[in-house]
């Protein structure tokens, strides 16, 4: 669509007007009154929204994924992704197959070097996020990793978390929440991280009991009190970790257990050894507050930073679906995604957290990466060290927590564009060739499409080119600088 100069100026004038208005909710609405202008900008708004949805269901959509979605529709693609085990990962797996020490048992891992083990875990995690075709599954693995946060830096966590990642998080990420919760409670990594391994009758430790209710299930306003925490801690006495044969496995120690009746959330829990806490876990897994808490977190993850304000009915409906399906994570997710992410328009913005931001630059540009310390360090510098979040609440999921730390994002953008990121490689020449012809405007259109979902509007694109022109960069340096600018730009920090 060619624009006359008058259209351009009109469009520019409208944009200026919008920028001056504080109450207007979207450019789209205003332009709806101007049919010709809408036709000019409609493509930008429309196609970008679908891109943005796909960008949240993945770690940055590749051209292949976008083509597939264009072919079968986002809904059908989503169903494929939910049935993740049917998505073939044979070829991507070749990239992390050699790191198979992550499939070892705890006592075998403990015998290996700490660096070797932690690197294997971090590398496989990143390689999967970058290369796996099961993108939604990897996004949900990250979600539950954060939800049931465990730091590698505490005690024996460095090898215990490898087992937890495999047997707790990955096993149940798109399964059933009750099973996920039971697995987590008995996970030696969790028992060490939140000190329950030291929780015994003579010296009760409430740390895990509290976080179990506050963070993992009911939520801080979920309707429990300090007494409930203490009573749950009593139920959990004796839930500990073996220090000898077999090192690093769960063990219930009856000697440490506080027998005797407990009362949690209004229910009497008769003395039953290890089964007491199991009964409470069942209670927590099916509690309405848990459903609300989890639904809220998922709506925050995929739709908006303000679930209570922007989507309260959606949270409610999703919570109901969770309860009705007895904790089926996919049932919960379908409501959040179909009724929320795929349905809401205009789609509220979400700021990209560090790992997501970094990988969303690698994937669309087909940058090769070894998932090693080069990229790990970038993500850590951006504030989200892999398996290194020190507090049990996990890294936050609102813009405010991340949007002020720009410097290292900019550093990364330039390093990636100039191929200075150790362990990663960007084929800029191939990208430019794909842009066809190499004319500046076409290059910008191509990069814009890859990274932001659509070519920049002509005015913005030409402005960008003018800003590039004002630097003293030589002609051959401009593509890398342009790419760095796009990755560092405000628009790329958001989906």
């Amino acid at each position, binding site marked *: 669509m060619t624009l006359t100069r008058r259209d351009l100026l009109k469009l*520019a004038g409208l944009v200026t007007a919008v920028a001056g208005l504080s109450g207007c909710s979207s450019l789209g609405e205003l332009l709806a009154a101007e049919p010709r202008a809408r036709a000019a900008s409609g493509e930008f708004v429309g196609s970008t929204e679908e891109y943005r949805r796909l960008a949240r269901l993945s770690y940055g959509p590749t051209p292949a994924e976008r083509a597939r979605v264009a072919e079968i529709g986002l809904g059908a693609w989503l169903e494929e992704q939910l049935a993740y085990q049917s998505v073939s990962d044979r070829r991507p797996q070749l990239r992390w197959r050699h790191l198979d020490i992550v499939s070892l048992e705890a006592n075998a891992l403990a015998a290996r070097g700490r660096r070797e083990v932690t690197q294997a875990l971090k590398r496989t995690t990143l390689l999967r996020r970058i290369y796996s075709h099961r993108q939604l599954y990897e996004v949900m693995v990250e979600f539950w990793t954060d939800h049931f946060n465990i730091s590698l830096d505490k005690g024996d966590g460095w090898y215990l978390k490898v087992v937890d990642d495999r047997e707790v998080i990955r096993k149940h990420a798109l399964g059933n929440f009750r099973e996920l919760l039971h697995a987590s409670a008995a996970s030696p990594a969790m028992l060490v991280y939140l000190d329950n391994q030291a929780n015994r009758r003579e010296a009760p*430790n409430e740390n895990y009991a509290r976080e179990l209710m506050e963070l993992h299930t009911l939520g801080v306003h979920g309707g429990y009190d300090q007494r409930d925490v203490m009573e749950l801690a009593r139920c959990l006495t004796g839930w500990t970790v073996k220090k000898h044969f077999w090192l690093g496995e769960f063990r219930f120690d009856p000697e440490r257990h506080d027998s005797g009746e407990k009362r949690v959330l209004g229910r009497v829990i008769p003395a039953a050894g290890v089964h007491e806490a199991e009964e409470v876990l069942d209670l927590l897994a099916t509690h309405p507050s848990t459903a609300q808490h989890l639904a809220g977190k998922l709506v925050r993850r995929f739709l908006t930073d303000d679930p209570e304000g922007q989507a309260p009915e959606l949270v409610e409906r999703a919570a109901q679906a969770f309860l009705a399906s007895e904790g089926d994570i996919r049932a919960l997710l379908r409501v959040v995604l179909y009724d929320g992410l795929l349905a809401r328009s205009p789609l509220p913005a979400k700021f990209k957290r560090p790992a997501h931001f970094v990988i969303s630059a690698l994937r669309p540009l087909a940058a090769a990466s070894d998932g090693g310390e080069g990229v790990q360090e970038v993500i850590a510098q951006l504030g989200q060290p892999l398996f290194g979040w020190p507090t049990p609440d996990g890294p936050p999921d609102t813009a405010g927590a991340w949007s002020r730390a*720009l*410097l290292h994002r*900019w*550093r990364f953008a330039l390093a990636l564009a100039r191929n200075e990121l150790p362990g990663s490689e960007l084929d800029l020449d191939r990208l430019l060739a794909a842009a066809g012809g190499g004319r500046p405007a076409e290059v910008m259109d191509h990069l814009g499409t890859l990274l932001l979902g659509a070519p920049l509007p002509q*005015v913005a694109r*030409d*402005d960008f080119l003018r*800003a590039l022109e004002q630097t003293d960069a030589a002609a051959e340096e401009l593509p890398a600088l342009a790419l760095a600018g796009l990755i560092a730009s405000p628009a790329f920090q958001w989906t």
Partner: protein
Amino acid sequence: MRPTDSNRRTFLRAAARAPLRLLWPAWMPRLAFAQAAEDPRGDTLIVIFLRGAADALNLIPSHGEDAYYRARPTLSIPRPDDPRSRITGRAIDLDGFFGLHPAMRPLLDAWQQGQLAIVQACGAPDESRSHFKAMELMERGITSEVGPASGWLGRHLATHGGNNHSPLRAIGLGETVPRSLYGSVPVTALRQLTAFHLNDDPRAARQLRGLLRTLYQEPNEPGEVGRETLGVLELLEKLDPAGYRPTSGVNYPDSEFGLGLKQIAMLIKAEVGLEVATIDSSGWDTHFVQGGSSGLMAGLIHDLAAGLAALHADLAEQLGRLTVVVMSEFGRRVAENASLGTDHGHGGAMLLLGGNVAGGMVHGSWPGLQARQLVGPGDLAVTTDYRDVLAEVCELRLNNRALAEIFPAYTPTFRGIVRTSSDPVPAGT
């Protein structure tokens, strides 16, 4: 990549009306400025960790005590008035009982100006005498394994309600960020300030900065943050550690420690928003031929004292808003060992330097070095928990009252080691 002239005229005119606003797509949030609660900013805090368990007994010898000389026939520092030893080898008297190792002489000025304080018999409850374990617990600010994985400084930064969003709010000098700084606030480890440049190639860095200035023009929060970050970057470009001129007459030692302190001083003077800096001095695990007035440990002390004294002089004008804490994971055995060194001990000492420190005094209750006064295999007892000192600094100097979160499961006792700024300075200092 140069547009033709007619195109240029077109979009130059359009650009004048809507500079890159369409790079700010419609769906991006129109954020209001965040209204954050403000705690007033306190001092800049520098934490110096002496790695390896520094021998406090020779750093601050209790020359007034016979037991010290009986326990260390070879290693002890001679009394201030000992005629058998050279003057330059004798302890520098502080208060008739305690003295300073002679290599601490550069800090005598600060002591006499009341800006250097010592806390004796200071340390942690942990009796493992294991470097690794003791350091970890001390940096996490907890008594035993059980407790938060974050560091005490990380928790301080997370709980302080100030509006400081500088990318240089907290830095750790060294290869990795020390455990004490782990927390939810991002901290960068840097060996040199060049880690804060956009790229090692100054041209590339400058080019991207130019582009970013245009990209972050918007009058909204993301634009604000972008411009603030660019401001810090532009400042840093002008700062060059090699070319930095300290206050006239000040000479930092030519060591990694000295260079680190110099960079911290430079950042403080440049007012880039630095709130917390950590730096290590290593090599203090003197099991073997430790030396007394001279030798291995004396060399370490010299580097420490010369560096601190240079910092003190260089930042004379900023001292009122500066607190420096020197600490170590534990002290060393009272008796010297068979290799003319000392083994791992328990109680140690802390030093504090700053304009609002209750200086010119030795704080803490001295348990004594007689056999019956020692603990374990013959170590100095701890009578002041290190957290008492740090908590007092947090509340009185850093304006952070969230002590229960910074030091969980511990109730600190303040001992008057630092003052609030409004306290009068005692006469005579």
